[in-house]
């Protein structure tokens, strides 16, 4: 299958699915409830690409995004998968 995979594009940062264990660790480290995390739509191309690779992703799954940053070099961002179409 020669379909285009957005995750391989150089402008798309690395998206990782967190395991429940990692998720707990991250939330504890941040000291916040999960719903205070930024959201990512489950229709987001990156999430769809991940689903194609790893099977369905449940709402509420936490995604770790590792981006190149002009100020910090590398920056880590977390997003919670949300069911809603449009993210406010």
């Amino acid at each position: 299958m020669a379909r285009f995979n957005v995750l391989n594009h150089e402008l798309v940062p690395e998206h990782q699915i967190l395991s429940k264990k990692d998720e707990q660790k991250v939330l504890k480290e941040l000291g916040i409830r999960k719903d205070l995390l930024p959201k990512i739509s489950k229709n987001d191309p990156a999430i769809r690409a991940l689903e194609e690779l790893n099977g369905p992703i449940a709402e509420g799954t936490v995604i770790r995004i590792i981006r190149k940053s002009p100020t910090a070099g590398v920056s880590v961002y977390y997003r919670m998968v949300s069911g809603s179409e449009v993210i406010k």
Partner: protein
Amino acid sequence: MTSGISKKIKEIRFSLLSPEEIRRMSQVKIITADTYDDDGYPIEKGLMDLHLGVIEPGLRCATCGGKVDECPGHFGHIELAMPVVHIEFIKEIKRFLDATCKVCGRIKLTDEEIKAYKPRMYELMHSKADVELLEINIKKITDEAASRTICPHCDAQQTKIILDKPTTFREEGIKVTPKEIRERLERIPDEDLLLFGMDEKVARPEWMVLTVLPVPPINVRPTITLATGERSEDDLTHKLVDIIRISQRLRESRDNGSPQLIIEDLWDLLQFHVTTYYDNQTAGIPPARHRSGRALKTLVQRLKGKEGRFRSNLSGKRVNFSSRTVISPEPFLSVNDVGVPEVVARELTVPVSVTSFNIDKVRELVKRGPSPRDESGRYIPGVNYIVRPDSRRIKITDENAEINSERIDVGWTIERQLMEGDIVLFNRQPSLHRMSMMGHTVRILSDRTFRFNLAVCTPYNADFDGDEMNLHVLQNEEARAEARIIMKVEEQMLSPRFGGPIIGGIHDHITAMFLLTHRNPRFTEEDTINMISYVDVDHLPDPEIIDGKKYYRGRDIFSLILPEGFNARFSSKLCAGSEGKCPYEDRVEDKEVYIRSGKLLTGTIDEAAISPFSGVIIEKIFKKYGPSVASTFVDRMTRLAIGVLNVIGFTTGIHDYDIPEDAVSSIRSVSKEAVAKINKLIENYQAGLLEPLPGRSVDETLEIEILGVTGEVRDQSGKIASAHLGLNNPSVIMARSGARAKMLNISEVAGMVGQQSVRGGRINRGYTGRTLSHFEKGDIGAEARGFVQSSYKNGLNPLEYFLHSIGGREGLVDTAVRTSRSGYMQRRLINAFENLKIDEKRRVVDTSGSIIQFSYGEDGIDPAKSDKGRAVDVDYTIFDEVGESS
């Protein structure tokens, strides 16, 4: 205002007042147009009846028994002799009349249609749907109903009703009286109202025709008593008087059977008065006027527009304890100071609570009265008001000061006039960044302008061509503490925009420091002392003794104002921008600034060292020694600059641009060559010999080549001109030190102005095929497209002048467009970001605690405390601590 019941507004509903409701909420039926009797007592059942509330101290409200500030006021009502239409509902009345049957009152839609439309309307009315959508639907339905000429319910033939603006309805040319209108509206059944978007539970269409008029409480239309004792009624009261008079006359005429014509005239007059009572700017009606000829300000005028209740009083906020006046420079003030005129200081006050600790001092202060001076006639603060514990205010005058100073006790408050050392907020609009509003300490000065140090012009973006600024006096300790700790000028010296200084030496300061340190000149002892006397430095540098006379070097004098132990190393601005070898400065001595242990050893102090945006010395001092040392440095530097210029002297003028005849002729030949080159290019182009550049058309290539040539000439002429203008030339000193202007500007004055451009290309607009009628069509030569060969000093010929003006205008238009666009963008950004904050973990969070960014700027660095965006300047730290290394 400590506690109260807090409730959330769930919804707002608009409805109409019914005549019954107006009567029910009325406390008194107004029957007489009179206000007060001869003794000045309100007449019963008049417009100032005591049931309507009280505005006079001493009287009590006849309705609630409250005193002046307790009674909120109560409504009354006027029974109109005949109904009149409400001007604000004319459109709606027309819609009802158009869409309903004149006989049976039903909406002119078939039962099927009604059944089809109702659910949709019900849904729109009861959901939070867009009001616009509702309006579109109403219009669609009513337009459909209005187009029927036969009633689907009673088969009656319909006639067209025309609105003869503003308030008269006509049916086939015959006037329909408000009474008839009201009767027709009454016939409309409740069930049909939904289709008009009206909720029958709260509104009936006939209520839009007035039979009863509510009379607002007198608090809304207070009587003003003039200083002469004369009473003056509010505009609304005047209008209500008119309405009652006409209503009475109309009733009498009607009751004693006057001719129909007279009754109709009076009825129209009543309609006029009621209409202007609501809106005195109704189109088609002359505005009702006061005896003086001034148009009355009635209900709509109170609410509408920029000066109306909404924009002026509800959206707009105004403050007390503030002042505004013209600004002017005062180089002898610290950057932290602001010079406040005495007249302003006497007016603005600071509240001081009286305690057992300060009571003696406060008594002394009050005793002075409101305009005290010390023995030598200088300003000292007085007291304008004292406030008793029950918050009654007593004005202090010279006469009562002595007695009142005795009365004061713990728990009172006094309002003390401004004094030296008070902290105030100083602001210049537009307030585009946080440095537009900074805390200053007060210095009381004579005259009438606010004054401040020139180094603070940059953050405020102020100049002195008539700019005005605002000053706010802080009224509580918390605000003063905040202003001292975070808003003071010295705390704001580094901009959060780029992590560098925003406060520093400008114009003359840079020129002076340049003259002081460039080539390290020698000054006599007398001159040196003269310069240093401007600064609070109490010693001289080590002298150089030549022929038994003491001399001092400029760099040593500059070193006097540097903090002890300060180190820095950087390049002067001198050579920045010059390609290749700098023609003047091959000497490391002058170029490389080297400061070690608070001594300037080599280098020239110029823009790169002390100016806002780039000043390395200011930035490094602030970061190493903190705000107060940095502001002291700026204070001393700006004062020293004045001292230096007073000793050396510095003048610029048109003769700065005198260049020798041979230079002039060589510039002329360069420009002739350029024109020849351009002509050659055009020739080639016309012969079709021009080779296009990759990715460009031949036309574009020609333009690019020509622009290249004109750019080259300008550089060449600049070089020729500046070859004759050395660093002994004041204009060149200003340009090369970075004080003002660029070398380019000098070559424009002395050499040649060069190619004028619009949107990056040569000027190409005006007539068809030519810029001016002085050229032939299709002339694309140098002169015809805005190549200016003259210099500003010699003057431009008329054609050049015109084309230069075209180019010059572009800049003006650009700035005008840019400011409005970027202003709007900034507004949107501010609104989007205003409720975000950085929490203690350096995360960006909103008010609900949701995370926006996990680390501010992804690196968690506060740009205002950073080093041009980086957390630390490692090179500088090593240099500072270890000394010579890399």
